[in-house]
């Protein structure tokens, strides 16, 4: 047993309690620092991605997110764009809206949503590769995702 390794072992063992104390007692500032350093963010598969535009229609608003083409090493060829309408109380029964000017130059589309039944359809001008990925109610509104292709 070398003396150096022995000292290192005791130092490591003695530091164990201070380290565990630090991560619990200093949880808030340390976790902020960790999140900032690592640049962590929740995957847009769950958040819908960054917001690109918000359109105010008076009693309700439309939130168009940036198109998402997620891939681990490079962007995938297939992605989606998320559109939210809120609040539920201000929504008309039928929403028919043109979504265009998407970041990345993808073609726009027209979408028609029945807010009572949750039925949605894409307009007749939809490009190949575009299609409804999902329609789901969310807190205070509706969310629709439309498939896109690069």
């Amino acid at each position: 047993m070398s003396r150096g390794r022995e000292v290192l072992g005791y130092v490591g063992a003695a530091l164990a309690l201070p380290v565990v104390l630090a991560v619990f007692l200093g949880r808030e500032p340390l976790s902020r620092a960790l999140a900032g350093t690592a640049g962590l963010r929740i995957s847009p598969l769950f958040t819908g991605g960054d917001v690109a535009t918000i359109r105010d229609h008076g009693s309700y608003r439309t939130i168009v997110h940036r198109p998402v083409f997620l891939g681990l090493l490079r962007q995938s060829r297939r992605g989606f764009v998320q559109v939210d309408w809120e609040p539920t109380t201000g929504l008309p029964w039928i929403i028919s809206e043109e979504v265009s000017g998407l970041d990345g130059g993808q073609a726009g589309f027209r979408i028609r949503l029945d807010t009572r039944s949750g039925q949605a359809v894409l307009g007749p001008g939809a490009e190949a590769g575009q299609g409804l990925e999902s329609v789901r109610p969310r807190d205070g509104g509706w969310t629709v995702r439309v498939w896109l292709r690069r």
Partner: protein
Amino acid sequence: MHPWRPGLGRSVLLALPMALLTALLFFRGPAAADPFQGAARALVFAFFNAMFFLMLHTGKTDRWRAAGFIVYAVLFAVSFISRHIESRGTVVLTEAVWFKGGFPFCHILIPMTLLPAALKGLIIFPSTILGSPAAVASILLVWIGVSLTLGRGWCGWGCFFGGLDDGFSRILDRPVIKDLGARWTDLPLAILLMAVLSSAAMLLPTYCMWACPFRVMAELDPPTTLGNVAQDAVFVMIFLAFIVVLPLLLKRRAQCAMLCPFGAFQSGANWISPFEVRIDAGTCTKCRLCIQGCPTLALTDEALARGHSSATCLKCGKCVDLCPQGAARFHIKGTAPDASPELARLLFLYPAAFLLAAMANGFAQDGLARLLRLAATGRMW
């Protein structure tokens, strides 16, 4: 060599620093306005400190660790399930709730999250990055600290699920299935590999979505399609098999030894931790009590011959408690094999017991407060 049992006065003195440190954690911030929460806080504080005192005073580690660990897991389950039912009104997890986000982050997700987080900064789970003790950054921080110090001790002292299979593994006096090959410890490695690769490819938490037995705790899919029903049946079967039936029959922590991908991943952290369990060949009589008792098959004849437990060791201290010769000991790496095992045990016990109390702090308090409220008013919330 028999365990060191300090007298009452010395045990109190040794337990005092832990009481002060846990008091800092439990009682900082404003006093609880809810009387049930206040009572639960005091009871949980007293309970975990009593367990630590008994570890010191009796010289037994696992006996008191297990009591604390099992109580923590049960109260966690009470808190987790009732909170979900309270907020959603149902035990199922709808797609709308899933995409609403804000879920508590679970450490089992960590190995599946690391690759997308390292390459893209992406967390592939609908949680929050900051803002609560169960947020991603907070759990990652605690995991880093614990991995560096206690290694896979996380699974023996910190995991909020581990106490469930630990509890079931202690119900029968003798195992029904006695010989279980150590090769079973390779299964979680295979599951880990599949989970990491599929999660990286799909950028989704695949193990969590398809195989996690703890989805039975108020996170089942709504039974609206045949696929969902089949998926829920898988969750229930895995839960029953690995958390209830196999631990009962094997008297081992089957989920931790044979399924959990996080456990397999965390075994690697045992290389970093300064603590290990050593078997003194000169004292060992090869009675095999430690091999029979090890909850994760970390002790085998080969491990005994090597003189230390294998990487799957949870540092629960069961073998140390079981060994009639005192041949199984906590040890600090790099020091002589016969270096003071009591000092090594003490230096290990403080951070490990603090981890248990700190992890239990919020969950156990909330779970107990809900049970106290249920007993007093007939309502859990």
